[in-house]
């Protein structure tokens, strides 16, 4: 670059002409046309996609009663709601205000503990069921197509029906309280973890399985010594992730009477106990973040261990 700046203009042009090979005009035109066609095709695809998206959005808006006018008219209620649930603090009596705001702290802490226990018990029982079922749903371990198909459909059913729908039905069968919540979370977890576990199992190395089979192991032994050691750390990591999700789920189980802090939350929302709403929401958010933080740490350690062992 430095040298070419010193050259007089005609000399520079000459040097460039030698550096850049020139295409014949026809070839150049062809290339330019191809490029223009490719860009135009891409642009057409984008336009077509956007048009389909917009039509679908309009149809969905019509179906879903979207009323932007009503939205604009009432939007102020959204920030206003948060303003009204915000606790009142004055500088002189901040401590008193705080204790008044969190008046129910002992009760709410207990309920949050219950919520965590519901999530824990549901996750553990669901993980055990999912662990048992996932091997039956993996095509590389089970020869029979029927068993694999039936187990997969069962897991899909458990996963697709939301846990709160199970809770609604179980509340009628078992009565109010944490029991239907635990069962609902356990069933949903069975479906979700069973599917994820089965995907892990289908991706394992087949050699250990063949080795155990070749030395005469039974199906249980094949699973125990051939498959389980390969997948255990992944399973625990998925189960911890599911526990995180279930804590959120357990917090709203109380909406349908299935125990935990949700009962108090929906009551205070329905009865307009504004400061209670914000206190309970804050407690739930803090708990969820804490659990997220802890499980993330544990999961990173688990995955790190696996990496070190391999």
């Amino acid at each position, binding site marked *: 670059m430095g040298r070419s700046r010193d050259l007089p203009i005609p000399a520079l042009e000459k040097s460039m002409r030698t550096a850049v090979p020139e295409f014949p005009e026809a070839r150049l035109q062809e290339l330019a046309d191809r490029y223009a066609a490719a860009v135009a095709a891409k642009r057409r695809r984008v336009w077509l996609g956007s048009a389909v*998206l917009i039509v*679908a*959005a309009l*149809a*969905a*808006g019509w*179906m*879903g*009663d*979207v*009323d932007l006018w*009503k*939205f604009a008219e*009432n*939007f102020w*209620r*959204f920030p206003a*709601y948060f303003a009204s649930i915000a606790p009142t603090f004055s500088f002189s009596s901040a401590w008193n205000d705080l204790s008044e705001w969190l008046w129910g702290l002992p009760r709410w802490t207990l309920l949050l*503990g*219950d919520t965590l*226990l*519901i999530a*824990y*018990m549901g996750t*553990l029982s669901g993980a055990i069921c999912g662990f048992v079922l996932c091997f039956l749903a993996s095509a590389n371990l089970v020869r029979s197509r029927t068993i694999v198909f039936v187990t997969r459909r069962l897991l*899909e*059913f458990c996963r*697709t*029906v*939301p846990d*709160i*729908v199970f809770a*609604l*039905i*179980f509340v*009628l*069968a*078992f*009565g109010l*309280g*944490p*029991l239907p919540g*635990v069962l609902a979370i356990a069933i949903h977890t069975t479906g979700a973890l069973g599917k994820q576990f089965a995907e892990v199992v289908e991706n394992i190395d087949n050699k250990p399985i063949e080795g155990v089979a070749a*030395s*005469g192991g039974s199906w249980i032994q094949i699973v125990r010594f051939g498959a389980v050691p390969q997948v255990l750390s992944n399973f625990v990591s998925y189960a911890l992730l599911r526990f995180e999700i279930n804590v*959120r*789920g357990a*917090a*709203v189980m109380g*909406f*349908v009477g299935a*125990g935990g802090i949700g009962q108090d*939350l*929906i009551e205070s*929302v329905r009865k307009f106990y504004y400061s209670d709403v914000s206190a309970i*929401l804050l407690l*739930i*958010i803090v708990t*969820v*973040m804490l659990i997220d933080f802890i499980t993330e740490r544990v999961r990173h350690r688990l995955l790190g261990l696996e990496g070190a062992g391999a």
Partner: protein
Amino acid sequence: MKSFSSDAQAAIVERYPAVFRSGWWSRAKITIGLSAAVALFLFGIAQLDIPFHRLSDGMARLGGFLRLMLPPDPGSWAEALKYLNALGETVSIAFLGTLGGALLALPVALLAARNVVANRIVHFFSRRSLDTIRGVDILIWALIWVGVVGLGPFAGILAVICSDFGTFGKLFSEAIEAADKNPAEGVRSAGGNHLHGVRFGLLPQVFPILLSQVLYYFESNTRSATIIGIVGAGGIGLQLAEQIRVLEWQKVSFLILLILIAVSAIDWISGKLRFAIIGQRAVA
């Protein structure tokens, strides 16, 4: 196994001590962990006062419900049409909610990605606010929006938007941070400014990934959109909760069947689209 002579076995055991004799400490850790898990479970049973005597009764009643559910039957054609309409509402809620959440989350995700905005404070606050939004369950959002725009599917759409905003913000910013930084550097070395680098170097890389994440969540949002009707935010959940409360079990099973069919149809479609967009790459 039997044909192994015992001294050959002993030789193998001696050669691979790590396989056959794990240290007492690692065994103790497993035992302690398992017994802690069991103890916590038992503590939970005691603390939550799980009534075991109700378990057998409840199972019997549940079996009765199941018998009453078969065969699924909407009652009449008019009812069936009403339920199909509700299903359409649910799919609309999921679609518009996912779309709106994704559109709102994109700019915030750019702010929360370390390789776009290098400012630590912006990064910290955008991350924490996304975490806060994610900590609130979709049912709670629905409850709040029902108070703002009234009962109906519109409240459901807004609730899905809010809850997806947090999720997408996190997923998008992680995808953006994982992107290759060479193209952006190339754009900048050719004389583009930082924004050019983001637009031409970064976004073309991450856009297919983001799109496939959105499609993946469309399916999972259809599931969550089925439940927000329980608090009055429209869709098929409203009908479902109602029919469960009045013990119309045949209608309940019909509705559950509808949900299963709709979710697997959307799962199939979004799977096809995702495959067309990014090929057989797993979605994180």
